[in-house]
């Protein structure tokens, strides 16, 4: 057993009247890759900015490498790598300058590692930063962050704005670079297939608190998805084992957690039940955080089909 690298302990944070984090509690262990998922404005970036000391929590506490995030010393900052969503670099520099800048401002920076990584990513030192594509810039940011040999790598939606191929390359680079380093990673993302590839543990942040904080294997083992066509008059199932029940064309789609055999038997008895399957991460995410009114987007489309104006004029 070893102490966690990151601990969020009941963190609350608001911006004006909007409460963004309502008591976030999670831990990231050494060497663990933790993916923080959530819809837009769920509080992912806020959580990461609090972790890095750019923001202070209103309540609760974040501990990073054993230190309070409100008072991170330069020494602790040196043990944290960071890749922002906008892959910000000084636009007047070349790739070689960015490496040199990093080497001077981070004592633990591994120059040889960075040079090798640049070669592997086809980045030339003479290239100017503004001439790099988004994907190349993302790769360079990742190399700069990992080459400083961090104990914790924080990535805020690092693949944002990259196309599928770029994203794949970026993730490959991330996996390659992190191999055998023992570095813990906390990253936020909207790309669930990517998360499935690399994450050990997943947190789904919704409405300021975590709905899910679990390993991927656990999720696959404990959550089941099935379609249920109830017989007339049979009520929809509720209770702690039903994560969500939503109406679909072919019946109801049920997302079940640790479904006991008697619940499945009751469902079979009350209607037609498809064989339960492990959901994909995307299905789980949509099931937990998707809109409560599935028809919210369909109604205007239906009206359009009937020939009514989409805006529903006066």
């Amino acid at each position: 057993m070893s102490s966690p690298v990151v601990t969020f302990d009941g963190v609350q944070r608001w911006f004006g009247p909007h409460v963004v984090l309502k008591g976030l509690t999670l831990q990231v262990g050494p060497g663990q890759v933790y993916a923080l998922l959530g819809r837009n404005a769920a509080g992912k970036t806020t959580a990461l900015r609090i972790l890095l000391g750019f923001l202070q929590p209103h309540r609760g506490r974040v501990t990073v490498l054993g230190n309070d995030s409100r008072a991170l010393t330069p020494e602790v900052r040196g043990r944290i790598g960071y890749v922002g969503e906008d892959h910000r670099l000084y636009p007047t520099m070349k790739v070689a300058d960015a490496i040199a800048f990093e080497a001077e401002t981070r004592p633990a920076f591994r120059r040889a590692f960075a040079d090798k990584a640049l070669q592997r990513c086809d980045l030339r030192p003479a290239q100017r930063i503004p001439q790099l594509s988004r994907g190349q810039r993302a790769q360079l940011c990742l190399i700069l962050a990992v080459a400083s040999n961090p104990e914790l790598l924080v990535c805020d939606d690092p693949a944002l704005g990259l196309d599928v191929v770029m994203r794949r390359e970026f993730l490959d680079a991330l996996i390659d670079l992190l191999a055998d380093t023992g570095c813990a990673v906390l990253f936020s993302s909207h790309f669930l297939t990517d998360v499935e590839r690399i994450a050990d543990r997943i947190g789904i942040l919704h409405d300021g608190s975590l709905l899910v904080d679990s390993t991927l294997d656990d999720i696959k083992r404990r959550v089941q998805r099935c379609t249920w066509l109830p017989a007339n008059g049979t009520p929809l199932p509720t209770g702690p084992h039903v994560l969500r029940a939503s109406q679909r064309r072919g019946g109801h789609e049920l997302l079940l957690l640790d479904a006991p055999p008697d619940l499945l038997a009751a469902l079979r008895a009350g209607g037609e039940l498809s064989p339960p399957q492990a959901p994909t991460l995307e299905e789980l995410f949509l099931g937990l955080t998707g809109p409560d009114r599935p028809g919210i987007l369909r109604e205007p489309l239906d009206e359009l089909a009937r020939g009514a104006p989409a805006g529903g004029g006066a």
Partner: protein
Amino acid sequence: MAWLLRKDGPWVIGGGIVATLALGGALHEHSGARVFVVGADRLEGAFHTAWITGVVLGSVAACFDEVLGTREFLAQRPLARTALIRARLRALLIVLACSFVLGPIGAWIGFAAFHDGMWHTRLAALPAIYAAYVVALSGAGIGVAAGSLPVPWWQRIVVAAAWFGASFALIDAVSRGYQGAARMAPFVFAHVGAAAVFFAIAAVAARYDADPDRPRAQVLRAIAGVPAAAALAVLWTVPCGEGQARAIDLLQDAYPVVLKRGDEHVLVRATHEPGVWRVCDRDHRSTGERIDGRQPGRGGVRRPMPSWHWLSFGFDAPLWHSGHQSGWSDTTTVLLAADGLVWTRSLADGLRATGRGAELLPFANDSLIGDVGDSVVVIDGATRQPWRYDDAAGHFVPMPLPAGERGEQLGWASLDDKDPDDAALLAQLADPKRAWAWQRRFVRTQHGAYTVRDGALVAVPGLLARVDRGRWARDDALATNQTDPIVIPIELPDDGSPVRFRHELRPRTANEWARAVPAFVLSLCRPPLLQAIGHVTVMPRRGGWLFDRLVADGRRPWLVLGSFVLGAALAWSFARRLRRLGADRAVVRLWSVAIVLLGLPALLVAWAAERPRAYAQHDVAAAPSPRLGSRAAEEVPA
């Protein structure tokens, strides 16, 4: 750290080039001889260019990473905040130092390329250049300090404007000496001191991030909030003073005037009918009696108001000595340096050194030069002997004065050429060969006025007495006017004979009170601390705009007390608000003291700084446990 400087490369190089060109180019407002040989007495272009350059560079240095979006990219590095701030200030100082060195060198090369005589260049001319440049330092300090404040951009601009206006106007007032000339050492030291203070503010302010949802750090209130309030308080005296001046002008217009009727004096007010007056009693109420001033033998109207005026706020490029630096003969310009060295400049001979007598000796410090009559005249600062430039000889020759007379000044006859008496005096000063405005200058001694005609001093009788009655002399004498503009005692006749009419003009009627009250109200609104200082100290000759004439010289202590009471009331109500918001006691105490001492301006700053949003607390229900949770992280094997 060289790379911290290098990341600032774009603005360091760009700013350096622009600053060098600006500061160097600004020196071309004068000739090379004036700037690099004689030593300019005023470098207005360089002064204004320097402070603008400084403010812009300081703001860019402070906001560079913020504008580029690299603030957090930089902040997440293992570097102490102080190291980042040091690097920022160092880059700024490097840019300023380079432009201070390269600007004058570039300007000199520019002069040398197109003008001869630059080999006369003297190091003694440099202090005037650098004294004009020094405002770039204080300007940069203001820019970097305001730019580093963790507040919204519009508040940074307001604070920068307040710091700039207040500090420059105060330094201008402090460094002004005799006849408006500035003293170089106080001017330079004050600006360097201001720069040091603002750099220190920047160093502290840059350690904090802006967060509108949390109360600011107490140290920020102390090092930025209170100075901002103080600067605003200084500036606040300007509209108060202007408003008071307007109200008092109206009040004085409403006061009755004195009419001499035979042997007696009466108080009268004008009617709508020209020349017809309405008589008032001692309480300024109309008696109903009317006097037709157009009838012969009715006597003249006396308006015995003190000729005071409000000292206006402002700052300008410093003038290093009060006299002129140059005079013009027919073909030659004569240039006099502050240290007494003299040169001539002409198309034929270029720049040439000259001086007293054939030995070309320098004049003493603080000598005066000007065109008098048909010659260029210098009054030697030590002997007070007038000297005339002899074109033919190429040097100055002495002009003897009557025994016991000493050249005091080169006076200026500010007379009305439409007045026959004045025109006759001006005709004596005029040189028929040179019909230009400068012919009004004359040599002033203790007892007389002289012009120069055919190489000799010629007395102009009556000129001195006429000039001393003139408007300019009177205004200058009243620059430190201490009199009360509201309560005005009158004693007539005022020619030394026994007083036969005595009265005190003060608000007595409702109309007069209606005009006096705004002046008193504005007095109450002035910063209490400044009211107290102005009440107990002598009104300064310069910077008088800072203080209130109504309470100066120990007058009206109730107004001073009233301003403190008003300040205390404002402080009390704001303290209640702060306590309601949930502010710490230290915060309440700090702003209370600031508001009591500085009044309304401090209240405004406190109100802008302490927003309810920063103190808002939300009752957030405890977050439920994740619906889907598995083993905690510490249980995951490393």
